[in-house]
């Protein structure tokens, strides 16, 4: 577009409203499920040596994480979380109109694992069910989709977000082996006339796709990449930490500020900023750069690792559980990473009916 054309578009009388927003939708409750197998940093010392572990931990801040045992999948964790959520919310299975499953570690290549979960949960044949293949940004995209489904006529939506990244990492890759944890979560969203708008900002930069990738297992033959160590198999996760980090610094502070501006909310009025738990050093840096207090931006990566799309709901059911169930809160959820893909959702919540964490 020419400069003049661009200015004309900006100044057009029917400019769209600032950003994306969906009203009349409420988040009712959230449940997370963690696998029973806990791995402490000392468990990695045989492999990487105490110093090798300490170097990485200083940066990522993970003290322990939970990994699924053989045979347990992300959908198993989400199933348990969903069952508990339905009970706590007193939602009959046939009252659920849609099930959205956000994961990059589905049970099978087909069918969509959402359909399998639909069957296990005994939901109605009128309930739609589909998978969304996003990672770190996936929970926010799930909230967006759930809100739109409700705007389109659904009354109740089950949003399940779960990941077993432990199954994707090369156990010999120090940078990723220590970082990731597994978790499954379930969130219940419901039509609620009069609920204030949820403000969203969503975006993508596909040029960053190769910087965080499992290149094998799909239908395209993996292309050689000189950055990959020869020992790293195609079906293991490759992460260019430096590139992902600089992407995050470029994208996230801007994303948070844009969302606040669209919603007309001062950052001091934000009760909690729920950042995807990517890496503790990075989180602290972002919080400082945004001029937020540490109390406004809880960090739990020390106890659970980076759980990809599950990290934001897991933050709700752990560090924020007491506050979320006690009183209304204004919170912003921010997911960013693999894709590159990012999204934010600013919500004014009523106190939640439940926010709890289960051992699966």
């Amino acid at each position: 577009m020419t400069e003049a054309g661009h200015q004309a578009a900006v100044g057009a009388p029917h400019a769209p409203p600032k950003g994306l927003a969906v009203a009349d939708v409420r988040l009712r409750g959230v449940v997370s499920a963690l696998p029973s197998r806990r791995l402490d940093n000392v468990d990695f010392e045989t492999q990487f040596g105490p110093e090798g572990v300490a170097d990485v931990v200083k940066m990522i801040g993970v003290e322990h994480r939970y990994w699924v045992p053989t045979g347990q999948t992300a959908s198993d964790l989400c199933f348990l979380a969903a069952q508990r959520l339905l009970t706590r919310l007193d939602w009959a299975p046939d009252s659920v109109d849609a099930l959205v499953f956000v994961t990059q570690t589905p049970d099978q290549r087909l069918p969509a694992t959402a359909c399998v979960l639909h069957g296990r949960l005994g939901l109605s044949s009128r309930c739609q069910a589909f998978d969304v293949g996003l990672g770190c940004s996936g929970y926010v995209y799930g909230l967006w989709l759930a809100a739109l489904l409700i705007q389109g006529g659904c009354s109740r939506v089950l949003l399940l977000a779960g990941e077993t990244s432990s199954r994707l990492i090369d156990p010999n890759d120090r940078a990723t082996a220590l970082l990731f944890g597994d978790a499954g979560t379930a969130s219940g969203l419901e039509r609620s006339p009069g609920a204030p708008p949820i403000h969203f900002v969503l975006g993508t930069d596909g040029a960053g796709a190769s910087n965080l990738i499992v290149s094998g297992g799909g239908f395209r033959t993996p292309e050689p990449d000189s950055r990959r160590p020869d020992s790293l198999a195609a079906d293991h996760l490759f992460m260019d930490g430096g590139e992902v980090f600089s992407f995050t610094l470029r994208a996230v502070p801007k994303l948070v500020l844009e969302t606040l501006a669209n919603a007309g909310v001062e950052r001091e009025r934000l009760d909690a900023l729920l950042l995807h738990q990517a890496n503790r050093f990075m989180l602290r840096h972002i919080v400082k750069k945004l001029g937020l207090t540490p109390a406004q931006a809880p960090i739990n990566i020390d106890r659970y690792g980076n759980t990809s799309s599950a990290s934001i709901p897991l933050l709700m059911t752990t560090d924020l559980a007491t506050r979320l169930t006690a009183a209304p809160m204004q919170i912003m959820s921010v997911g960013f990473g693999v894709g590159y893909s990012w999204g934010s959702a600013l919500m004014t919540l009523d106190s939640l009916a439940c926010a709890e964490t289960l051992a699966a």
Partner: protein
Amino acid sequence: MSAFYEGLAEIFEVEATEITPQFDLIAHNWDSLAIVSTLALIDECFDKLVDGSVLAKCTTVADVERVVGMAAAA
């Protein structure tokens, strides 16, 4: 002593007085952790964002300072 040099000294675990433009990064474990820490330090001290891949090619502190000089403000 600038905050930037002090930050670099912390990253490389050396005395702040050791950081000079000639400081050899490669000899001090210029790995992905050090690069990521330096990215954040540059953002903090100069409000500038540089690319990890560009930073990775630096071999001295002077190189890093040149990269910072060329970067646009964040």
